[in-house]
């Protein structure tokens, strides 16, 4: 592993069974991300961007190859240990927000704090929601919030534990341009404030340009770094 690499992928391949036979989504992808770096993975729909993100975050297992996340070889540990690697150290922002509909905004933000045993989860969560501009929405349920507001809750949740790495999967994909712009600003602001490593998947080159480095995927293969 490269000395200051926080995420490293080696010869990652992901295949799935489809009605037409075995489908290769990712083909022999190797890459690494340095601590504190912001990286954009870009490519057209179906190029395998999100699959790569899922593998890097340990949310999925590769068919071949391995991922070393924060010093842990994910292929050597089970699902529970992968969860422990994520707890408190990894944050996520998804295209479709992935908030728990049964919990209020503050309860959603408190979740990762409580899972890592934070002593004052409510205080932290309240501060986080205030930071994303939702101080007056803390008791609302996701269904009572707009798409932009839901994504803000998701960002507050993602940063709640001060993670070392933040994975973002098309964070503006479900939002209009204006709201999307604000969300991306917020994401980058927080990332700078907390000095987080950011790995962002997007098809929007304009967003990609804001990152330190960009990798382009096409038909499951890494085309290389873009400038």
């Amino acid at each position, binding site marked *: 592993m490269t000395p200051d690499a926080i995420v490293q992928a080696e010869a990652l391949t992901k295949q799935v069974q489809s009605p037409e036979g075995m489908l290769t989504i990712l083909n022999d992808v190797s890459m690494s991300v340095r601590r504190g770096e912001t990286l954009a993975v870009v490519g057209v729909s179906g190029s395998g961007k*999100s699959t790569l993100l*899922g593998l890097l*975050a340990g*949310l*999925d*297992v590769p068919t071949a190859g391995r991922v070393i996340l924060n010093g842990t070889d994910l292929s050597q540990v089970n*699902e*529970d240990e992968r*969860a*422990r*690697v*994520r*707890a*408190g150290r*990894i944050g*996520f922002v*998804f295209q*479709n927000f*992935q*908030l*728990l*509909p*049964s*919990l209020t905004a503050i*309860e959603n933000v*408190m*979740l*990762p704090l*409580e*899972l*890592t045993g934070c002593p004052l*989860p409510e205080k932290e969560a309240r501060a986080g929601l205030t930071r994303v501009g939702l101080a007056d929405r803390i008791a609302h*349920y996701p*269904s009572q919030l707009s798409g932009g507001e839901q994504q803000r809750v998701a960002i507050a*949740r993602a940063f709640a534990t001060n993670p070392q790495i933040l994975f973002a999967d098309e964070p503006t994909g479900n939002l209009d341009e204006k709201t999307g712009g604000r969300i991306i600003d917020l994401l980058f602001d927080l990332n700078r404030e907390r000095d987080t490593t950011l790995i962002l998947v997007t098809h929007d080159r304009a967003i990609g340009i804001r990152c330190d480095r960009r990798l382009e995927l096409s038909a499951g293969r890494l085309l290389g770094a873009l400038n």
Partner: protein
Amino acid sequence: MRQRRAGDLKVVIAALAVAVAALVSVMTFADRLQRALKFQGSELLAADLVVRSHDPSKSEWTAEISRLGLQSARTVNFRSVVMRGEDSQLAEVKAVEEGYPLRGRLRVAADINLEDAPATGIPPVGTVWVDGQLIVLLNTAVGERVNLGSQQFVIDKVITLEPDRGGAVFAIAPRLMLNIADLSSTGLIQPGSLASYRLLIAGDVSLINTFRDWMRKREEVGVVLQDASNAQPRFRTALDKGEQFLGLATLVSMLLAGVAIARAARNYAQRHLDTVALMRCVGATQRKILEVFTIQILVLGTVGSIIGCTVGYAAQQVFVYLIPGLVAGDLPWPSLMPAVIGLAAGVITLVGFAAPIILRLRGVPPLRVLRRELGALPNHIAAVYITAMLTLAALVFWVGRDLMLASYVLGGSLTTIILLATLSYLLIQLVSRMRWGVGVTWRFGIAALARRAGSSTGQIVAIGIGVMAILLLTLVRTDLLQAWRTNLPPETPNHFLINIQPGQLTDIEGFFREQQWPKPHLRPIVRARLIAINDKSVRPQDFQDPFAQRVIQRAANLSWMESLQSDNKLVAGSWWRVQERALPLVSVEQQYAEALELKLGDRLKYQIADQEITVTISNLRTVAWDSFRPNFFLLVPPALLNGYPASYITSLYVPRSRAHHLSALIKKFPNVTNIDVDALLQQVRRLIDRVNSVLEYIFLFTVLAGIVVLYAAIQTTQGERRQEVAILRTLGATRRQLFIGMVSEFVVMGVLAGGVGALAAMMTGYAISEYLLSIPYRLHISTWLVGVGAAVTIVTAAGILGTYRLWRTPPWHILREN
């Protein structure tokens, strides 16, 4: 996406199929058993149909019987004195024709106290078969000769069981049976003789019905048609209760089916919201959407119901093989009716529960494609409840043959559902307030429950009903059946002593003391004949009801009582007070009152010997005839009949091994007649036991249906749970944390559902036993504990089983599905 929808469709079809299968299997099995039990009822008549008359049967009747290809046998019943030397004894004589009994078996023994066996044929010409008591009374033995009328007969066998003697508990004398061919030689039967002629008929049900209709059309005077349904009251009680239990099992499984279908239908509609929005987007009109979904629902209903019917038929057939000897002989073939009802019930219920939701689907805005929260189904759609209830009500009344039982089940269920829903909702609100006091995993579980308050309430109600059904059919049923069985405890009186004279009362009591028998309850009897109702004289022909005709023809037994016996229950009016003990009042048994169209306040004039007395009806009561204690249609206050000629009657239990003590009693008091009802009692017990074991199995089916409902209810939220598990796992929750969170939700839900379900089960059980079956029932707190325990265990186990797989699936797969 398409794959998941196909999966949903399978769930709907499966839920429907399981529900219909449960319904059809219970109904088919119950139907076959009911018909088998009816057949056993026929055994008590010795025939499927009996034509009773005071004149010999007409040749047209027998011609019609042979034309239809039915079996028949004649019997002639009358009383006569049997002589042996100087000894004489009144006997109930019965002349029987070859073929008797057409249903059931006559049992005979070679001598008194010898093992009995089914009789082959009837008494040969020149011989008689008699009750053991007649042999004792006449001081004779098997093989000796007795005189009947002008003819001498050899005593050939001792009768131990006569299938159709049930109604003869109060027959005043022992039985003597002879071959009908010997009857004329006795010279006892002359034109006008007081004899009862019976034509026993057996055969195919439809042919029996044809003959019955044919007979009814002839409107013959003094002819009574009797079948299993109006057989002897004691057996009728047993049969009726058996039928009521079976009906109950069927109705409860129908209700369960409804609940399961309701859950499935709602799920189905809920999952189609997006499809509808998309269809509207691409230009489908509301009418088009309605058409598409109506067709889908109908196809779905039909497919699910057909699968259910097939499985149901197979299941009950497997069951028949699994438990041989459930009823004597083969079970009748299954009829098509349950399948028709099952098919209709499946389709109608699915439509009934789904229609209001489909109507809602029409209104889903196309904008939902962009904003998923739009057009969501509200948690409570009043129309759904109303149509669902109307549908269920129609089905329950259609299927339930017992209207009374159906109303109880329906009314009880409605009340229960409303109570369950209210209670669950309140409890959820209460529990949700407690969520800040618990850890993250528990909070998550409780929050999930509270956030879905509407659907959680629905789920808890569904599980609660499942729990209620299971409890009702396991614990409460055991209590009910136990209560029914204890109506005939082991020491139920098996002998009646009648015709005891007032002067013998002290001596009889003394004899009982010597034998260390419990003190006898001696009940007085004054023979009286009804001559007028409300000053209008009555004749048998004034009444249509054959029972009423008999009552007027014969002398009635008037007895008196200070207070009501425990096996009697007041249904109208009031019992007499101490100061009324000499007033001319009368308490009338309900059936008797109905037959004679009597009501409170009516005046009845009776003739007792050469005196007349008029009494006013002060109350009506029901009598548990199967208590085997002396009971009376008519009771008067204790001091009213002072000075009138009375005899006394009592009943007692004497073990078979000590039956000879009774012979000693009869030797000492020769005028006292002993009536042995032991065989009859055994017959009733056997019937109850058989019905019981049948019920055990029927209930098992219903319990299975209940478990399916539980599972269906838990499955409802599995979709949401998938997403929750994936998110929690992404955030780093370990399996242990997930487990606790999920268990906490299931435990809370189980406690709520089990608690309210058990409460409902106990209340329903109490209502059924108290008001419907009239048997005492005790509430057990353990029922409640078992209910809660069972609900928590089942809900948690099913929930964990349903979600366990998710914990092993990489979360990315689930998140990407959304």
